[in-house]
């Protein structure tokens, strides 16, 4: 139990990350770079400083505390030289407007268990703890130790994964995971690569092995208009999923609410400029899966 993990956030009273009331631990680092990613702060495995400039009061409290002189006040306006920033987090603690936020803090398994068990009173009946991200299974040893501790405490566990990791990572957590929430983006590998940076072969193979191993699996498909909502893809996805033993298939509507995070992190905004799918489109997707 000596491993450590890097988290970007802990969400308590999480209601939509698996069954019941849960605590969700979001891990830093992801092998995919989905164009529509709503947690861009989770993609890089390294700690990152975000600056939500709309909250900045130009108070300059961050200037003297930064060991790298990354912050400055120029003509009464706060400026961040991102390339100097080492994400030490010193500025976050003094920021008066709450504009600076460090994503990525390293914790031990014992600390992770404390965080995860803080709200265990709420987990009955049906709730528990979800490891999400980013891709938690990129930190498989830490996940394994954390999940083992949770199972020992009698807590329901779920792992929310993109599936694009070595099978060994799944094997490590399989004995301690009650439910896998597997995101599935596109049935065609070439398109998958265009949309996420990786093909889908490893994901499909892992899904099949997971299913064969008898794991409880819930498929979660983000529905992105213009990217993966064609009838052709939905049918192909439905055919692929039909081979598997699944508990549930869920369609998650795209939303663009994360756009400000791209700017705050200094990342190019790749989010598609499309409206969220309506109820009718979501139902159509589900009906195509059912066939």
């Amino acid at each position, binding site marked *: 139990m000596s491993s450590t993990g890097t988290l970007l956030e802990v969400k*308590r*009273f999480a209601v*939509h990350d698996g069954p019941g009331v849960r605590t969700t631990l979001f891990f830093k680092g992801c092998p995919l770079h989905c164009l529509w990613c709503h947690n861009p702060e989770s993609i890089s495995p390294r700690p990152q400083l975000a600056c939500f400039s709309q909250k900045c009061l130009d108070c300059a409290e961050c200037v003297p505390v930064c060991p790298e002189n990354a912050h400055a006040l120029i003509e009464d306006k706060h400026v961040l030289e991102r390339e100097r920033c080492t994400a030490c987090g010193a500025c976050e603690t003094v920021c008066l407007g709450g504009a600076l936020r460090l994503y990525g803090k390293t914790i031990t398994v014992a600390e992770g268990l404390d965080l995860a068990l803080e709200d265990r*009173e709420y987990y009955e009946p*049906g709730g528990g703890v979800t490891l999400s991200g980013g891709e938690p299974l990129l930190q498989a040893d830490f996940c394994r130790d954390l999940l083992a501790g949770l199972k020992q405490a009698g807590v329901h566990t779920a792992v929310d994964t993109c599936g694009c990791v070595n099978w060994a990572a799944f094997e490590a957590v399989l004995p301690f995971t009650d439910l896998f929430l597997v995101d599935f983006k596109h049935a065609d590998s070439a398109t998958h690569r265009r949309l996420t940076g990786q093909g889908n072969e490893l994901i499909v193979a892992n899904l099949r092995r997971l299913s064969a191993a008898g794991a409880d699996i819930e498929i979660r498909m983000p529905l992105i208009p213009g990217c993966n909502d064609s009838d052709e893809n939905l049918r192909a996805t439905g055919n692929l999923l039909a081979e598997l033993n699944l508990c549930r298939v869920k369609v998650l509507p795209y939303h663009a609410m994360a756009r400000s995070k791209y700017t705050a992190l200094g990342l190019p905004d790749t989010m598609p400029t499309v409206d969220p799918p309506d109820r009718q489109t979501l139902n159509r997707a589900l009906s195509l899966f059912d066939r």
Partner: protein
Amino acid sequence: MLSATFKQDRAYLERKFKQQVCDPDSGLDNETLKSGVMALAEALGDLPHPVVKAKAFEYVARHVRIDVSPHDWFVAFGCWDRYDRPLNPLLVKWDKEVDDTLLTSLQTTQDQNDAGASIMWKDFDHSVPDWEVVFELGFPGLLERARRYRREREERGEMSDEARAYFDGIEITYGAILEMLDRFHGCALEHAADHERLPAVAACLDNLRQGTPTDTYEALQLIYLFFMFGEHIDRFQVRSLSNLDRMLQPFFQRDVTEKRYTTDQIREFLAYFLMQWASIDNYWGHPFYLGGTMPTGQCVVNDLSYLILDVFDELCIPTPKIQIKISPGTPVEFIDKALDMIRRGNSSLVFVSEASVKRALMHAGVPEQDACDCDITGCYEFIPRGRGNSTAAGYVNMLKPFELIFHNGVDPRTGIACGCQTGDLAEIHSFDEFYAAYLQQLDHVVETIIRCVNDFEQHLSRISPAQVFSATIENSLKTARDAFQDGSVYNLSLILEAGFATAVDALMIIKDVVFEKQELTLGEFRDILDADWHDHDKLRLKMLRHKHKFGNGIERVDALAENLARHLAETINRRPNARGGFYMASMHSARMFVVMGEKTGATPDGRKAGEEMSKNISPTMGMDTNGVTALVKSVTRIDSALFPGDFPLDVMMHPATVSGEDGLAAMRRLIEVYMKNHGVAIHFNIFDAKVLIEAQKHPEKYEGLQVRVCGWNVRFSDIAKAEQDAYIKRALSISE
């Protein structure tokens, strides 16, 4: 679905209590009535107040304008304006006489109020009749029972002048009620040809004149009439319209089984009934409650409970307000139905734990058999059913002690010496010493308000004898003592607080900034606060963003909160009051978190002068940043049994958090955990900050948007901008 007839009548119902709807020829206008009451009182000279008030009641009952409208199932009273009731001048006169001739603490009360240290509330607002008895006996039966008690007392040779006046008061009052029922009945008959509904109204009134209700409609009319006689003529707030599903169920079941009325007809009666209070539109709302446990141990919730919620949901009105009494048997479906309404913004609902209420009252010394069956008697307050009264007697400002320490007992805004002398700031060398000074100032404020309340409350029945109420309380009849004075078994006075969480936040700042980090001296802090943070904006923001705020599940903060709560409660609980009862501490703030906030200077937590403070057991607006589970943890680290007055928590959540079936189950789980840890009352605001900001800009588009203030709802567009801003600030601090 509400009927087409109801939809047509809704306009009438909405204006019924906002303008005069009665025929001017049916009686006297309010001004004439008021003059008549005063002339009558003058003519009656030195007769005892119960008799004079009863005669005044009788005069109003005989002469007030009345109406029985084809647009309504319920009768109309000419004295509809709650701010201009015909007995007001008489009671104001008696109140002034008490102030001028009997009170020794008048100046102290005034000083405390002006300085905003505490507020004494002259409370005639929290009476709940013994509804069982009202239903069992009806108006004529209540009169007969009072006469019987009178005869028995006479036969025992125990009739004092005071007891005689008490019984005279009740007999005259209830005689007048019966006369007024005759008037209503006559009026209904007179207009019977106008509408097919009116003969039924006439028959209902005749039945209630002769005896007890025989069906759901008559039972509803009885509740309404009792309320109007009590609140609008006798001027005593009837602060719950009963455990409505429990009281009405036998009638409902019989009506449906015997096909006297269909469910749709009963739905219609309920809609007209609920609209009466929507039209009255009391700022504080008007309560009734659903659920709880029957004396047989069965859960109260029944088909009618669902029907009442359905109708309330369809009407989408902020008042009356509904309390849902949660007991172990309360069906999940019922809780979910209420939660779903809240989620959709129809949120005039609060959940109250029956088990926690019982535990708190037993802690206050109430025996189990009385503590297990309580009426809710206000926003969330409770009393043993049919055996008590409770006054919201005094409100304590938890922030004023800071100003009093900084200025050695003197309120800096008014110069009033409303605190004690805790000495020179330079002599306070540690946080423990500061905290001791805080408690000393707090104790001084509490002792002062209790002294003022004791001085005043011994005269409650001199100012307003509670005749309508007393006749329903058996202990009052047995003892021939006014039920709101000292004639109930439990005559309780509450000391309430405002600013508890803000006080904890401010204490933590002093501890950290002044004594641990030594960034400022107390003297420097005083000067900055006196200047309302002028030129210290950064420091203020630092204090606002300080991590050690109540409501975040932080152990060291919660430990201080627990200590402070315990100290406050133990100073108040079970202290004898002036009415043969005792005091109980309450974590309820009503609107005083705004009112006393306006009279309080800047405080160390970052609050500016005049801003509102925290309310109830809830955190300072926007300061709970660790989510709702951390909030519940902080709150339930305080033993709710310390606050038998009540212990309500306000929860605000984003709509996305509670969407779908999972969201509903999560809300329910939150209630379960809160109550499992002895939480008493919990209510919700489910908001998206964007919607509130839009509603502030375009009120016309959001006329139906309700917010829960404390123990009641108001329309967002009806509250002041500063209060709207506070909600927006709070909503901005919560995430999905």
